[in-house]
């Protein structure tokens, strides 16, 4: 085996158990553009290994090579001490490597059990699916993992989080010893996350190695044993999590000291005579969310925390006119208003950044320009004709403000990284000159650098007299960014924590 000069001293003693996976000096270029210059990763059996790095650090390329989706240009990859060259994902799977990605690929018309064992169903007489046995083994697996999902339910009847759990269970059906998890918690709530962590720890205890990719620092420090950092396509550092702190890790990932992570301004002191920007009274929506009584003043950030299905997203959607059957009163600047459509909401100065960037935020095949201009074309047109000059100017303003990095503003947004995509959405809404920003998971799935920029923007926005309602499932984000926190719980009126700082534990407790 090669020397590892970059490893922290004391890590990986020579006499430890043999490595499950060892990659060294892995390189890959696309048409002469290097995407991965030096991929290094040593995975010990019975460990959770966090692979960290911003968007474009080369993680995805590296993982694609491990899974046989791409072939490397150079370097060594050894599984159980043997050199491997996977030509396709099937070979990787046979060697005991499986992956759980952010992109779900369920067959929605089939049951959970059928999805779990797709292509490997237990059979009768070689050609008939043995449904009894299929459901039994699926039930046994789900039960063992503690996932409360019926194996006979249709995939299409499950929530996004439940589908993610099924996807995780599916990876486990392959009896893999090396499991790659690429942002497995990006779409699921606190409770499901805990179940997932339990499953991961269980796997670790039976000697499996887990490569865990996430942008969430909290998860890394809660779950991982080892870490490896990539930056700009190359290995930077690796070591044991217990030897480092958050600050150190963030510095390694973004390559510089992180500025103050969350909001730097002092909490707003609301004067009695200030008119609230938004008030809701007895505001509720059928079975979706309980009563919300919220008063929001200019300059404030109200955080919303709640589990999946608590109605937190639906609350934002309803304010923006996207939910039917809302009861109660909504006041903007002291006047009662009715918001029946996004157009109405925009007239009231609202803007909504949805949690599903690709599904309900962007129009992926359209360019940066077209996506940013979309909501401001009424202003940037004369008699129905687009005023290209005004448009280009407005778009350029946003590209500069948010430091959107792209070769050209004519680039379809589907080819951009998550962070840059999110900036496009924010840019679009900022151009409508909103006073109230509704942000649903604004930093989901984006890298640390872009996160910081979004936090900075939020601070700037409220300093200029805007107000923000932000839904987030990251406890630290909610606590760090908000002046107050609303806690949503399914079937209950929402609660507001106004007095004194909350702790993480209190918040999670309130939501459960």
């Amino acid at each position, binding site marked *: 085996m090669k020397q590892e000069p970059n490893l922290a001293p004391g890590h990986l003693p020579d006499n430890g158990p043999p490595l499950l996976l060892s990659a060294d000096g892995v390189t890959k270029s696309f048409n002469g553009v290097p995407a991965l210059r030096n991929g290094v990763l040593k995975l010990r059996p019975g460990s959770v290994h966090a692979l960290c790095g911003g968007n*474009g650090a080369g993680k995805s390329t590296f993982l694609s090579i491990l899974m046989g989706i791409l072939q490397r240009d150079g370097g060594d990859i050894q599984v159980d001490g043997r050199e491997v060259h996977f030509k396709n994902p099937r070979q990787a799977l046979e060697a005991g490597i499986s992956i759980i990605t952010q992109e779900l690929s369920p067959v929605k018309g089939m049951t959970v059990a059928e999805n779990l064992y797709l292509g490997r169903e237990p059979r009768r007489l070689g050609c008939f699916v043995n449904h009894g046995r299929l459901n039994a083994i699926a039930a046994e697996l789900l039960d063992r993992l503690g996932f409360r999902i019926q194996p006979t339910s249709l995939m299409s009847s499950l929530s996004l989080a439940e589908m993610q759990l099924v996807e995780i269970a599916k990876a486990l059906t392959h009896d893999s010893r090396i499991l790659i998890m690429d942002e497995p918690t990006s779409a699921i709530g606190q409770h499901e996350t805990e179940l997932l962590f339990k499953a991961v720890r269980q796997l670790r205890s039976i000697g499996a190695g887990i490569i865990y990719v996430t942008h969430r620092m909290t998860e890394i420090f809660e779950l991982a044993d080892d870490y490896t950092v990539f930056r700009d396509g190359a290995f930077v550092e690796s070591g044991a999590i217990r030897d480092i702190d958050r600050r150190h890790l963030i510095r390694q990932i973004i390559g510089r000291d992180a500025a103050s992570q969350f909001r730097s301004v002092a909490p707003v002191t609301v004067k009695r005579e200030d008119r609230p920007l938004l008030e809701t009274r007895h505001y509720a929506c059928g079975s979706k969310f309980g009563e919300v009584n919220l008063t929001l003043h200019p300059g404030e950030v109200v955080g919303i925390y709640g589990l999946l299905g608590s109605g937190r997203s639906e609350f934002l959607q309803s304010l923006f006119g996207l939910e039917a059957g809302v009861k109660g009163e909504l006041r903007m600047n002291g006047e009662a208003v009715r918001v029946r459509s996004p157009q109405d909401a925009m007239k009231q100065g609202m803007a909504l950044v949805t949690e599903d960037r690709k599904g309900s*935020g962007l*129009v992926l095949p359209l360019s940066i320009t077209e996506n940013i201009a979309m909501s401001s074309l*009424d202003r940037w047109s004369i008699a129905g004709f687009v005023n290209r000059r005004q448009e280009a100017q407005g778009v350029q303003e946003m590209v500069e403000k948010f430091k959107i990095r792209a070769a050209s503003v004519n680039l379809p947004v589907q080819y951009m990284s998550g962070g840059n995509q999110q900036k496009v959405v924010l840019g679009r809404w900022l151009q409508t000159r909103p006073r109230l920003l509704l942000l649903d998971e604004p930093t989901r799935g984006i890298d640390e650098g872009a996160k910081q920029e979004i936090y900075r923007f939020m601070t700037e926005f409220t300093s200029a007299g805007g107000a923000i309602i932000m839904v987030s499932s990251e406890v630290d984000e909610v606590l760090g960014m908000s002046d107050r926190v609303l806690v949503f719980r399914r079937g209950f009126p929402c609660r507001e924590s106004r007095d004194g700082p909350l702790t993480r534990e209190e918040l999670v407790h309130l939501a459960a």
Partner: protein
Amino acid sequence: MITNTSNVALTTPATGSESAPSLSRRQSTMTYVHQYGIIVAFFLLCVGLSLSSEYFLTPKNIINVLRQTSINGILAIGMTLVILARGIDLSVGSVLALSGIVAASLATGETPQPAWVAVTAGLGVGLACGLVNGLVISRLSVPPFVATLGMLSVARGLTYIYSEGMPIPDLSQSFLWLGQGRIWQIPVPVLFLAATFIIFWVVLNKTVFGRYIYAVGGNERSARTAGIGTKKVLVAVYGLAGMLAGLGGLILTARTTAGLPQAGQSYELDAIAAVVIGGTSLNGGVGTIRGTLFGALIIGVINNGLDLLGVSSFYQQVVKGCIIVCAVLLDPARRFRD
């Protein structure tokens, strides 16, 4: 190859502006091939045919091809709007027949109505059918395939009821001019096609409405969240497609000198073919009207060329089918896009 391209695109922008130029070059190469590949294919086809038949490149034949292309071209332009908005309109052939027969009934008899009355009625009937399609699809959430399949049958039925199954001949001279007249030697149907092309090129490329069509087709939920009145856009798109089918009906009626209740059967398929050959994605949001024009021209030239070469019309259908599939298969931009 497929994964390579997408990965470059995914990783390059994030690494910063240093490596950006290579992406932009790639991007523009792909766009270039995508936009001009169809035009190159069209001219190669023309060169091939002019070598095999000396008659092909004569002015008379060229005008002939253009005239034969005009109705399908007009229908295909309407179909482009619909497919860009991620829909489909199967009813254009029937709507064309209904508009034609209504216009014919007004332009015939002892004292025919003036041509403009017949024209307005024909366009109005087409527009009305299209608006019904649009309302059923956007307000009642019926899938476009089903809604327009229904209209295909309803409009055809109404055509037979209205005409009692009989052709309506003896049309006024001024009406016949629509199909048979010429201005500076150019047949009027060709001028209609040119005008339609220019108008809708401007609509799609220069207007807010055009932008909204791309947005609604690219992702209806996102468009709605962005404050676009998606339902209005859809109603307008189907309305326009219906009106263009009406225009096609007027021209066809005038060319055949009679309103025929069975006219326009399976015309929707040729229109869809032209749009698809022209590179518009059936997934919505991606495509150009110029591509559609060349798609229609390619179909026209193939029909004409095979006629000139003496290939039986039965074989022509086989050839056309193969070309539709190959056009999509060979479209280099398709892989990049998917």
